[in-house]
């Protein structure tokens, strides 16, 4: 019980300090774009009502979930492909790097040509942005599979899907997790960016609307909400990860000495 409280205390200490600094720093602000934190916090519950959450945040989250899922599947699949052979990598990597360097705001119009202006487009935009950290990390994870383990599989005739599942994916999973974690935040960012194009609802759309209509405290409350959303998703992610990678964390913990 006390351990949980201590951890909670640690988790909250820095945010509390930063918020205090923000509060004090902006208390007397007359800068139009940097309103006092007080105003932002007052606006927060007024802006983010249940209706707002249902009408704007929920659709965003659904698009995010869809885009993220597509990105994870595509990233891992492509990553395994690119990571497992030098030839494949040589052919595919430049193409992938080419598209990776194109900024989403430039890419969105091109995607719109193919995916229309509906939710499909937004899901594609999110997926197209999230896929990179997953892809890169999967590639590196797959390349780093331990040689002795790989030989063990070969000599026992473990090949194909069985090898993929029992060796390649499991051994790359800590790195894939790192990529998925990165992708989660990028997904939120792209959720916002995708809603700057051809949207009529969504969290990103709403924030942009606030910005355009000079409702600056409202805009900041939206940014705050984005941060909270990121925090919540990452806590969720860590829960899942600690289960899926129990062996990995167990191994690390088991062999660590006294706390340093």
């Amino acid at each position: 019980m006390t351990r949980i409280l201590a951890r909670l205390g640690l988790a909250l200490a820095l945010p509390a300090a930063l918020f205090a600094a923000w509060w004090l720093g902006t208390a007397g602000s007359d800068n139009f774009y940097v309103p006092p934190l007080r105003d932002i916090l007052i606006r927060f519950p007024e802006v983010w009502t249940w209706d707002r959450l249902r009408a704007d945040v929920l659709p965003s989250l659904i698009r995010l979930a869809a885009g993220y899922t597509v990105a994870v599947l595509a990233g891992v699949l492509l990553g395994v492909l690119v990571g497992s052979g030098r030839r494949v990598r040589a052919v595919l990597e430049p193409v992938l790097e080419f598209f990776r360097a194109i900024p989403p705001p430039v890419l969105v119009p091109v995607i719109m040509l193919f995916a229309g202006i509906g939710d499909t487009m937004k899901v594609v935009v999110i997926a197209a942005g999230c896929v990179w950290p997953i892809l890169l990390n999967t590639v590196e994870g797959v390349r780093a599979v331990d040689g002795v383990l790989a030989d063990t599989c070969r000599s026992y005739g473990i090949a194909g899907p069985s090898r993929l599942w029992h060796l390649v994916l499991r051994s790359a999973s800590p790195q894939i997790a790192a990529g998925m974690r990165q992708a989660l935040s990028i997904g939120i960012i792209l959720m916002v960016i995708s809603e700057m194009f051809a949207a009529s609802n969504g969290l990103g759309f709403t924030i942009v609307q606030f910005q355009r209509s000079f409702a600056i405290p409202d805009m900041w409350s939206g940014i705050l909400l984005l941060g909270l959303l990121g925090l919540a998703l990452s806590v969720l992610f860590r829960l899942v990860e600690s289960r899926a990678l129990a062996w990995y964390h167990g191994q690390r913990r088991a062999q660590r000495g006294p706390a340093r």
Partner: protein
Amino acid sequence: MLLDVRGLKKVYEGRQRPVEAVRDLTFGLDVGDLVCLVGPSGCGKTTLLRCMAGLLTPTAGEVRLRDRPVTGPPPGMAVVFQEYGRSLFPWMNVRDNVALPLRNKGVARKPRQDLVAEALAAVGLADAHHAYPWQLSGGMQQRVAIARAVAYQPDVLLMDEPFAAVDAQTRADLEDLIRDLWRKLGVTILFVTHDIDEAVYLGQRVIILSSSPTVVREVLDVDLPDQRDQLTTRSDSRFTELRSHVYAQIQAAKRESTVGSHDAARPAGLAKQVLQ
């Protein structure tokens, strides 16, 4: 001839100068052979085993199994790697580690479970089923790797210093396990070891390798009775003769290669330096 190694040569091409690990090896294993391989540290035993297992492509020469050249790992062959710690899957518990090759081979659930349980019991790990490899001691890990190979019921079993990390008593038990398996099932076994007593006790033949660049120095027939036993066999005078012979050969092998290299400089030199 089941396994045929002909003029095998392996050169590792590194960034720096190439390393000639194995120069020229020729020997064969018949069906049902139990051959032990001894040789100085770094002479290329592991390299040879990997070539035989189809995991490494020789620079010259070839390995043939049942008269077909080995180009990849052949089915029905199990390998116990010297780096036992790295050959177990850290994300699977002991049971799953042993069961995986069987599952992959298509062994049904029930016989698979039995095989796994038997193999783990045979290596003295009956109560470690649910532990992860990293929760085991070094010797226990090595025994898991042995259990995996044994449960796989291979035709050919290649073992690279499989008992290096276990205590004397366990080692004796495992030696008897291997001989039992071999006699009852007719598995063909190639067994790399540094323990000369072990080589003589286990093998029908002992192949002694020279120091690097490696060739076969001698193939020794072990003319001890097939029915062996830790107490009587080891106190047999023929046993003592044979082991002395092997020991002398290895000593000679090492001496030849290290003319004036470390043996001369060794203890006195280091101690002098260290004392300063």
